[in-house]
Every structure is written in C-alpha cells, then in structure tokens.
C-alpha cells in the first residue's frame, strides 16, 4: 500500500548539507497501524512529509495505492492528497472557523456541494464524539477536543491513509489514550491505514502492530511490535524499549530478564512484585521501571530480573504470564 524505496532527503543549511533521511526503505501494508518512532531530530517528521510530498525526497520513490507520488503533477498530487490526509501535533485548525466549517474545509477545497458537506461533517462530529461542538470555535475547545475535530476534518474526504504527526505529543496521558482509541476505531471500522509518528513508546505499545525505529535518518529496526519489544537489536531500539535506557546484562549476569508493560492496570489491584514474592516465592529484582499512574490506572513498563535458579525462574515467568492487566515478554538484555 505504501512502498518507500531507497529514499534520501537532504537539506541545505548555512553550515552545509544535512542528510535528514538516508536510504529509507519501508513497506506499510493495508490496514496497518504503523508506528515510526525515534528521538527528536531523527527525521520522523520529514519522513512522514515525504509520503504526501509536503517534502520532496531527493532520491528514491514513494508509491501509495500503486501511484508513484514523486511523478505526479500539481493537480494529480492535490487529488492524491485527498486520499492521504494528515493530523498534527498542534492540530492546525482554522481558528476563525467553527468546528463544523473546519470539517467542511477539505470538502470545500474539493468542491463538494455545501449541503452534502454539512451532512457529512455532522456525521463525522458524531463519529469523533463531539456532536454538540458544531458551532463552537477551536479556541473554545480543549486540546483533546481540538484533535478530535482535526481527525474529523482529516476523514472528510474519505481517505485511505491517515498520517499522524506527533498527534498526541501535546496531550496529557489520559487524553492521549482516548485519542489513540479513536484512531484504532477508525482503523478497524473504516479500514484506514494509519501511520503514526511519535517519540512516545507508550503510543506504539498501545496501538501499533508494526513499527520502524528511526535513528539519525536511517531505519535501524523494523517489524512486528511484539518482536521488536521482546528482542531489540539496535542501540536505538534498546534506548526506546528499555525504561530509562537501562538493561545491561552485565549488571546481573546469567539472570533472565522480563519486560512487563502495564496497560492500565488498576492501582487497587494487588501489587505485582510483592505478589510474586508472597504467592510464588519468587524473588525478582527491578532492573528499571518507568511507570506512572493516570486516573487510578498504571501505565508504563518495568524490567525485572528473574530468580537465578531455572526452576524458580520458570515459576515466576508462568505467574507473570497469568497476571491480569499486564503484558510481558522475555527479553535478551
């Protein structure tokens, strides 16, 4: 569906040419929720802008829905962009238009008859859960509501691909969660392929099925999210996957490591590490942890070192696997 091959993008700056993207090749399948993750300055935003040609790659090709984006003329490109829409970190709504008119905007550009556009806009307001905000102006909305309106606007022209450029980075964790749920719903119900640019591991963890890790303009790792999380190969992937950038096997030689992700476990539930010790008799060490509590739910991840004895380790692993509200995978640290 989206096929990027040997794409390179350079920028001319005052201090010489900077290579923002170097020989990127990716293929994103239909109905994927594809994460592209990396630190700031890794080239994520440039990469996503090369998909809809807001930035022109210097080398390589981008094929979306069988159409080679590099070779389209201006009018063809405008038509193609109606099928590849985008949402942004700063929402980028028109501040002098009501929400309804913001959603009508792309249809206005496409010369959709007004009555039809208004009808569709109202349906979309319903879909994003803000039917009462039709006549409100963006300044009257919260960040999460603005992003919902931006999503409705992006869906107005029935796109096949939705590009999300740090769409949740300006939102608090709770709002991030609800926006991600909405994006998942769009992906599942409307069959729209989603590309998510983010620096937040939790975003990839929550909704992506595949992920590419971008570091200094190159894809250092790419594949199924579960596979990459359980066995990150590159230094950049380790930095992202392991909380606090930790996980050195030399710290606890010979111990098996398990990565535990809390996906909204109730804080009132019994505590994992203590339960392991009491109910299972397994003494695990916390190698690293990066968790936070949002509205009574625990989010984030923890890296545990299992007991040294093989038997105890197996027992602990089985216990963790059956523990409610968490996902876990053994990692090679």
């Amino acid at each position, binding site marked *: 569906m989206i096929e990027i091959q040997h794409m390179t993008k350079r920028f001319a700056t005052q201090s010489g040419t900077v290579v923002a993207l170097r020989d990127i090749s990716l293929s994103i399948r239909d109905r994927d929720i594809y994460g592209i993750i990396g630190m700031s300055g890794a080239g994520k935003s440039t990469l996503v802008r090369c998909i*809809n040609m*807001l930035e022109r790659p210097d080398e390589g090709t981008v094929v979306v829905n069988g159409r080679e984006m590099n070779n389209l003329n201006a009018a063809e*490109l*405008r*038509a*193609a*962009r*109606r099928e590849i*829409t*985008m949402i*942004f970190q*700063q929402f*980028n*709504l*028109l*501040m*002098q*238009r*009501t929400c309804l008119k913001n959603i009508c*905007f*792309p249809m*206005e*550009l*496409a010369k959709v008859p007004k009555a039809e556009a208004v009808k569709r806009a109202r349906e979309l307001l319903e879909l994003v859960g803000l039917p009462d905000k039709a006549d409100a*102006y*963006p*300044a*009257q909305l919260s960040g999460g509501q603005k992003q919902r309106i931006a999503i409705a*606007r992006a869906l107005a*022209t029935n796109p096949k691909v939705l*590009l999300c450029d740090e769409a949740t980075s300006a939102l608090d964790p709770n709002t991030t969660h609800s926006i991600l749920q909405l994006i998942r719903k769009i992906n599942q119900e409307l069959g729209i392929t989603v590309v998510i640019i983010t620096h937040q591991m939790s975003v990839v963890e929550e909704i992506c099925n595949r992920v590419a890790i971008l570091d200094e303009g190159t894809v250092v790792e790419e594949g199924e999210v579960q596979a990459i999380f359980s066995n990150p190969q590159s230094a950049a992937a380790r930095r992202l996957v392991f909380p606090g950038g930790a996980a050195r096997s030399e710290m606890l030689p010979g111990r098996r490591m398990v990565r535990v992700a809390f996906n909204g476990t109730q804080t009132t539930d019994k505590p994992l590490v203590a339960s392991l010790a009491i109910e299972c008799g397994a003494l695990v060490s916390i190698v690293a942890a990066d968790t936070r509590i949002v509205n009574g739910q625990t989010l984030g991840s923890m890296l545990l070192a299992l007991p040294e004895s093989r038997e105890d380790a197996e027992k602990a692993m089985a216990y963790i696997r059956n523990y409610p509200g968490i996902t876990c995978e053994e990692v090679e640290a």
Partner: protein
Amino acid sequence: MSALFASEEWQVLMDNLPTLPFATWESFYATILSTFLALVIGIPLGVLLVAGEQGGVLPLPRWLMQLLNVVINLLRSVPFLILMIFVIPLSQAIVGTSIGTVASIVPLVIASFPFVSRLVESSLREVDGGVIEAAQSMGATPMQIIAKVMIPESMPSLISNITIALTTILGYSAMAGIIGGGGLGQIAINYGYYRYKYLIMAVATALLVVMVQVFQSLGTWLATHCDKRLRR
C-alpha cells in the same frame, strides 16, 4: 470672554462656520475613497509579498520579488509633501485638475498603497505556518490557500492595520490642503498658517481629531468582534 467674542479670530470663525460641515465631508470622502483605492492596489501586492517569496505558497521569480520590494520601498521613502508635487501632472491627466479634493486623491493613493501593502504583508505573516501546511496536505491550490486560509485567518489583524492606514491617510489628506487639496486641512492651513487665525485652525484640527477617534474606535471594535480566537 466678551473680548473673545469681539475679536477678529471669532469673527473669522463665525464667517466660516457654514463651510465647516462641507469641509468635514470633503476630508471624510477623500480619506475613505483614497483608502479604498489604496486597498484595491495594496492588498494584492501585500499578498504577493508573502505568497511570492521562496518557500511561500506561490513562489515567484526572485528578480520579480526584488523589483516589487524596491518599488514599494522607493515610493514609501519619498516624503508626502514632495510626492504631491511630483504627481501634479498625473493628477491633471487623470482627473483633469490638480486642485481640489478629487485631485488630492491621486497623490493620496500613490503615497498610501505601498504603506498598505506592507501592513497587509505583516498581517498575513502572522498566519501560523502549520495551518497553511495543513491546507496543503488537504490538496488546496495556492489561490485557495490565499483566499480561504491566509486572508480569513488574519482578518482581525488586517482590520486593525486597515484602521491604521485609514487614520494615516486622513492625516495625509489634511496635508494635501497645502497644495489646494480641499477639506479641513485646507481651512486649517489657509487661515491658521497664511493668516494667523488660530481659532479656526484649532476648530478644524479638533474636527480631524474627532474623525480619527471615530475611525479608530470603530476599527478596534470590528477587529475584536470578528476575532474568534478570543473567548467570550
């Protein structure tokens, strides 16, 4: 007090009182018409200054942008008093005379459209680049971005700046009194400067001040009331 009423100053004011309403009207319409024409020329130029630059929505050849900038700066740097004299032949060619209110509109427009284009430029530059990028990502043409994004999104700022232009042009129109431009400016200069009758000059000036106040209040009210970014 009675000395004032008996003075020559008072006499001159009384004699000319009937002409003041018409002079006020002349100043008013010279200003409004000149501002309107300056906007007709200045707004498209202001749009070109922003849209036409490299990386803008409608990039124009570099030499053309440089030419545009030089011409605008050149016209802006000629003092209005000198410019009025320069364009006398032009006024004569266009309106058939170089004196009177109608004739003063020619130098007023020429002096103010470059100023207006700079004001429009600065208003349009306030539009968030992200919003323009969003419109591009939706497949907007350059003209659609100008007409549906840049201008509507900067409307409050445009109205504020047009108000500035209006009050400045009113000031210029009074200056045009020197070369026989008509209106309140001419009364103030003819009586105050040439005949030392300060009272009537003060009254004519007061009328100009009132006009500026009215224009400014109206403009400020409009600019704030059309701005949907303000929560009310």
